[in-house]
């Protein structure tokens, strides 16, 4: 019988406190003893454990947030517009009501306002008259509220998402057979206003695939490949990129993307320094913690490594002819080719004496091994900074050349490691080994002591070279990111990975470069580490908070300095999860926000899922900007839900992210199409639809309003009931939907060619109060034209028979003018007019005439006034009808036309400029798809480009990143020590568990 005492369920993945009481013994429980939900254990036959939390109480689930219901910003603004319309409606009714109260009088005897008159018109109680008239007018003017707008918008959005987004071939990923998927049709236009993108790294930006790509041995670079970023730089410089002709049969394997004949098949023997090559390969083959699995043949062997980097390195050694095939607790077996002479293959066994493990402080890993001939060598690999500190003196040329290579690799977005070795004298080794064993068996501060001992032997190293591993990006990511940033969208990378990895990927994605001023706020500083070692939680928290505060202040001051200068460098902020935790504190939040909004890119590393969501909501709520989160795994779910728009990467990993998302695409690069094409168009279209609805209902209602002034404020209808009801439903319904579906300002290829056009959406250029005011102004003008032109011109007799028109003749005339004008006005807002526009506009006008021909041609058997009977035929028998029908729409639209002409001429929108540049080009039917972003630069652009190419003070980014999810624990397990997996790995693994191949079946 035993008992577990533990904390309440909470969302902190990193902490756990509890006690296990067993046999009257109390054992402390820490995160080391906890397995989080979603973990899968490997390489074990059985486990013994107890379940502590289940279901929604698990830490992983506590990190998820409630599914919010999302409404687009445009719709929320639309609500405000509708409220304004309600206000206008109320004002209009109030004016009418007051008028009616004042007007009503017994002196108008023809109104029969005798004793028994109903309350509505009883002059004895003017207040009641006003009140009742108010209600009458409310129904009369209710057309000002565009109820059908919501229906139309829903319809338009539904078709946009199901037909356009889901079926777009540009967003269809053929390899995985995955089309884009709009899971909600609410947010189409929101896609056109995104200002911040929060992206996960692994699986979203990268493929989570490490490939050995290049190396530098003895001052010589090997490897002919080119990373996407190099290609991009070259293209920008205008250098024609030639695919280097690969050797005849390059070896291609997952994890190995290296091609250089100088090193393959023993050719390295003919290189300037074959000895360095030999050491390099041996270092790769020996200094690691990889486990071989399966058949011991080069073709069938599988390497089990905690990190894909390690596997890639060992794999590289295999292809270079140093095939590591077996490991025992003390030995490593390597099948070496071409060592003594070409073609000779021999199995060599190395005795592993000590393994100096990798951790984030040491940033290096060393192995002491004994050759079969007794030679003692220490092989070491690690970050260039730590390795260079420990190099023996001399051979500066090599060091400098290698450093240059490292920088070159780093700026190309590759992950680098330095390799070095040291020959050890046996007696010196023995004395060191004693200290090592002592440290290893000490119970207190074992890790610290081990580190200290390692320092003793890891010195006077001899540099061999450097490796460069490509963290394979998803296809087209750098280009996409560049396009998006030209569109004014800022991209933040939020990742659970380590800082170095995150920075590296940021380089690879073009988010960071050496010209940027980088602010790094990290918890991995000596000062913080010193405090942490003392172990007082309260002190640690306080210290880090102070430190973060200081750092933030400093960065902000500096940033503001740069901000005031005209051509200051772009800024970037890199912050890790621990610091972020304190920076997100309410007292520091504003500083963090100000700083990060000034930065063009922000990288957050080591962040938990919840922090991702917090950062997202910080920008969403704090900056009131429209945010988009994109991610692929379960750890991104809360971030996806927190943002205005959540995008899931579909097709590869689990479905959690997709299930939580609003849109799902197969590749990161499809964001380009999703935002710049679909989002922009949806935004433009919906703005037009909304404004047009606003205009047409306002115009229509205002003619009615002007009429009210001429009827003694009695609430008499100007239009027949049927006209009023069918106005929105039939006579003006369809064309606006065509605009919502088909309107295109510029073609999709031009939208992507000029990403700057997107900024019109983020600035909300087409749905500002100014735009509303302009539409309202013209609606008032037009309604005045309709009412007065038609009534004034009908005050004399019409036609040669001398007969006069009545109320219904005039109102039918006015309604005809309204329908024709409003439909023609629609054509004026169109940027592209398809056949369907003509059909719908023509059809709407035709529908009105058909309706009125039939409606006024028949008498209904019901008890109603036959006001409209024969009216249209009477009207059409007079020349007045035709002249008015010609004059009134033109007079009404001349104002709009003048405005449009002047606006385009003198205050053009960006899209209008692009339209005019490309107005002679055919539409994007095939040919223009081939339009590339050309190298035609204007003189201005060329000059600014030349300036940007001038050398600057370069921060020396060398690209060290050795990411090892669970690396330390894996390594430790080799030594028989149990160490827990890190929480962020757990969260990631949880998202990957649907991947079948990770589930190894015993």
């Amino acid at each position, binding site marked *: 019988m035993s008992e577990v005492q533990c904390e309440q369920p909470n969302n902190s993945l990193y902490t756990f406190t509890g006690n296990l009481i067993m046999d009257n013994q109390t054992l402390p429980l820490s995160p080391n003893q906890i397995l989080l939900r979603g973990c899968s254990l490997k390489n074990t036959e059985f486990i013994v454990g107890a379940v502590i939390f289940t279901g929604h109480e698990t830490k992983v689930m506590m990190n998820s947030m409630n599914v919010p219901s999302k409404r687009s910003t445009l719709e929320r603004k639309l609500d405000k517009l509708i409220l304004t319309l309600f206000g206008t409606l109320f004002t209009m009714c109030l004016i009418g009501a007051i008028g009616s109260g004042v007007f009503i009088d017994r*002196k*108008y*005897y*023809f*109104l*029969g*306002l005798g004793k028994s008159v109903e309350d509505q*018109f009883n002059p004895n109680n003017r207040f009641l008259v006003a009140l009742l008239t108010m209600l*009458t007018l409310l129904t009369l003017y209710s057309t000002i509220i565009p109820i059908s707008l919501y229906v139309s918008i829903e319809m338009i959005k539904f078709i946009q998402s199901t*037909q*356009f987004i889901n*079926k777009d071939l540009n967003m269809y990923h053929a390899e995985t057979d995955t089309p884009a998927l709009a899971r909600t049709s609410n947010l189409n236009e929101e896609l056109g206003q995104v200002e911040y993108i929060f992206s996960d790294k692994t699986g979203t930006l990268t493929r989570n695939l490490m490939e050995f790509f290049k190396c530098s041995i003895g001052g010589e670079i090997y490897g002919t490949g080119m990373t996407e970023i190099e290609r991009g730089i070259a293209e920008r410089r205008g250098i024609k990129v030639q695919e280097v002709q690969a050797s005849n049969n390059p070896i291609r394997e997952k994890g190995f993307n290296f091609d250089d004949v100088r090193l393959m098949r023993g050719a390295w023997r003919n290189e300037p320094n074959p000895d360095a090559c030999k050491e390099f390969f041996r270092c790769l083959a020996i200094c690691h913690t990889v486990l071989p699995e399966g058949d011991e043949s080069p073709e069938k062997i599988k390497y089990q490594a905690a990190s894909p980097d390690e596997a890639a390195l060992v794999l590289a050694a295999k292809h270079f002819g140093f095939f590591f095939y077996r490991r025992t607790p003390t030995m490593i077996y390597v099948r070496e080719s071409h060592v003594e002479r070409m073609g000779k293959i021999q199995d060599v066994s190395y005795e592993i004496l000590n393994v100096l493990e990798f951790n984030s402080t040491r940033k290096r890993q060393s192995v002491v091994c004994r050759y079969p001939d007794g030679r003692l060598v220490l092989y070491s690999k690690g970050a260039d900074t730590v390795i260079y500190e420990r190099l023996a003196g001399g051979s500066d040329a090599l060091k400098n050349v290698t450093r240059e290579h490292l920088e070159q690799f780093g700026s190309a977005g590759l992950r680098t490691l330095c390799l070095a070795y040291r020959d050890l004298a046996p007696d010196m080794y023995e004395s060191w080994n004693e200290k090592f064993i002592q440290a290893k068996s000490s119970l207190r501060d074992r890790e610290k002591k081990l580190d200290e001992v390692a320092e003793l032997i890891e010195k006077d190293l001899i540099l061999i070279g450097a490796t460069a591993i490509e963290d394979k990006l998803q296809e087209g990511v750098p280009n996409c990111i560049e396009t998006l940033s030209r569109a004014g969208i800022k991209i933040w990378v939020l990742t659970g990975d380590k800082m170095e990895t995150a920075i590296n990927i940021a380089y690879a994605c073009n988010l960071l470069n050496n010209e940027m001023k980088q602010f790094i706020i990290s918890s991995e500083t000596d000062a913080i580490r010193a405090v942490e070692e003392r172990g007082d939680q309260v002190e640690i928290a306080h210290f880090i908070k102070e430190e973060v505060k200081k750092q933030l202040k400093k960065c902000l001051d500096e940033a503001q300095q740069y901000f005031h200068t005209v051509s200051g460098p772009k800024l970037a902020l890199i912050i890790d999860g621990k610091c972020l935790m304190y920076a997100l504190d309410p007292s520091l939040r504003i500083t963090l926000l100000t700083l990060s909004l000034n930065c063009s890119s922000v990288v957050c590393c080591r962040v938990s899922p919840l922090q991702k969501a917090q950062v997202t909501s910080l920008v969403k709520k704090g900056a009131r900007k429209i945010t988009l989160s994109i991610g692929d795994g379960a750890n991104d779910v809360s971030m996806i839900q927190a943002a205005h728009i959540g995008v899931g990467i579909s097709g590869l990993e689990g479905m959690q992210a997709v299930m939580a998302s609003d849109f799902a695409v197969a590749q990161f690069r499809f964001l380009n199409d999703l935002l710049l094409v679909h989002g922009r168009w949806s935004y433009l279209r919906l703005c037009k639809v909304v404004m047009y609805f606003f205009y047409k209902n306002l115009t229509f209602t205002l003619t009615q309003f002007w009429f009210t002034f*001429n*009827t*003694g404020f*009695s609430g*008499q209808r100007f239009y027949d009931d049927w006209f009023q009801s069918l106005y929105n439903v039939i006579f003006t319904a369809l064309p606006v939907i065509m605009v919502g579906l*088909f309107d295109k300002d510029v073609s*999709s290829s031009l939208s992507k060619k000029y990403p700057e056009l997107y900024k019109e959406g983020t600035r909300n250029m087409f749905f500002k109060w100014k735009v509303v005011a302009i539409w309202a102004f013209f609606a008032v003008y037009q309604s005045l034209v309709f009412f007065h*032109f038609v009534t004034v*011109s009908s*005050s*004399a*007799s*019409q*036609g*040669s*028979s*001398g*007969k*006069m*028109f*009545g*109320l219904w003749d005039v*109102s039918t005339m006015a309604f005809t003018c309204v329908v024709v004008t409003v439909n023609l006005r629609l054509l004026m807002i169109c940027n*592209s*007019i*398809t*056949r369907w526009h003509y059909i719908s506009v023509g059809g709407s006008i035709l529908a009105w005439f058909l309706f009125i021909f039939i409606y006024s041609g028949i*008498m209904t058997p019901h*008890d109603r006034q*036959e006001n409209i*009977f*024969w009216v249209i035929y*009477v009207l059409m028998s007079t*020349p007045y009808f035709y*002249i008015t029908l*010609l*004059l009134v729409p*033109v*007079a009404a639209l*001349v104002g709009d*036309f*003048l405005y*449009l*002409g002047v606006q385009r*001429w003198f205050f053009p929108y960006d899209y209008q400029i692009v339209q*005019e540049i490309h*107005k002679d080009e055919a*539409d994007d039917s095939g040919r223009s798809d081939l339009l590339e972003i050309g190298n035609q630069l204007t003189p201005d652009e060329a000059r600014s480009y030349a300036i940007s190419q001038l050398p600057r003070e370069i921060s020396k980014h060398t690209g060290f990143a050795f990411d090892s999810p669970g690396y330390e624990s894996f390594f430790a397990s080799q030594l028989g020590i149990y160490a827990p997996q890190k929480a962020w790995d757990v969260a990631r693994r949880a998202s990957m568990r649907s991947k079948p191949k990770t589930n190894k079946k015993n």
Partner: protein
Amino acid sequence: MTNTDRERHRERETAFYLFTQQRLPACKPVLTPAWVITIFLFTGFIFIPVGLVTLRASRSVVEIVERYDTECVPEPFRIDKVSYVQDDSIPKNCSLSLKVRKYMKAPIYIYYQLDNYYQNHRRYVKSRSDRQLLHGWKYHATSSCQPVEFNNNQPIVPCGLIAWSLFNDTFTFIRERAELKVNRKNIAWKSDRDHKFGKTVYPFNFQNGTLIGGGKLNPRIPLSDQEDLIVWMRTSALPSFRKLYGRIEEDLDADDVVVVHLMNNYNTYGFGGKKKLVLSTSSWLGGKNDFLGLACVFVGSSSVILAIVFMLLHLKSRR
């Protein structure tokens, strides 16, 4: 499947493809300065001639307007015009003499014009029964006629405020002692006469109440022939309106003097309305109304002016 079917199927598929890929063929109007200028010029060239023709038609109409509501009340009664007009014992006849300034070609239309008379008031407009006008007193559902629906429990035909307030001033015209013949037939729209007012419906129990609003009707003439009523019941759009009274079918020469004998029965004094008598010829377009012509000319000429302004701007600062 025949070939044409297959063809059609493929076409439909292509059309759908173009639809989903948003590549429907479209014309892309770009409102460049050249287009703006062209369209303005075009508008000008259409509207100026139309306007001038319209204006000419309107100007060719000769119109005589004479207000008579005050003059036709004898001097002693002008303090209290309402009691004058309501007092049946006082004779209401009155004479006006109109001078014809220009030659007026027959037919000359006679209108009466009322101002500040809200024929479009909601209570007024709805106070009629189109069923009853067509089918007579047998039709009972006449609640819309309130408050002029029944009198002494007998239905009123025609019911409602509109009919009740029928205009009842009468005019006779004398030129050089000879009475001008006034044709009072065919003054209402044919559709009203034929379809809205019954041929077998006779006025019944009309103006028999205590309050008498306006004119009385001859109970022996069917409604479809009571053209005064039909004209009156086509309610006007604005509170100031003209209604056709009849036609003089003789030409009037310039400097002719026409004496009008009228019965000033209708009460507009209570609410400050005006009464006018209008004699007007007619053009192909209708009566005298310069508005349409002027508006066309204005739109046309301002278009041309704008076109010129834009052209100058275009020449001065080419984009």
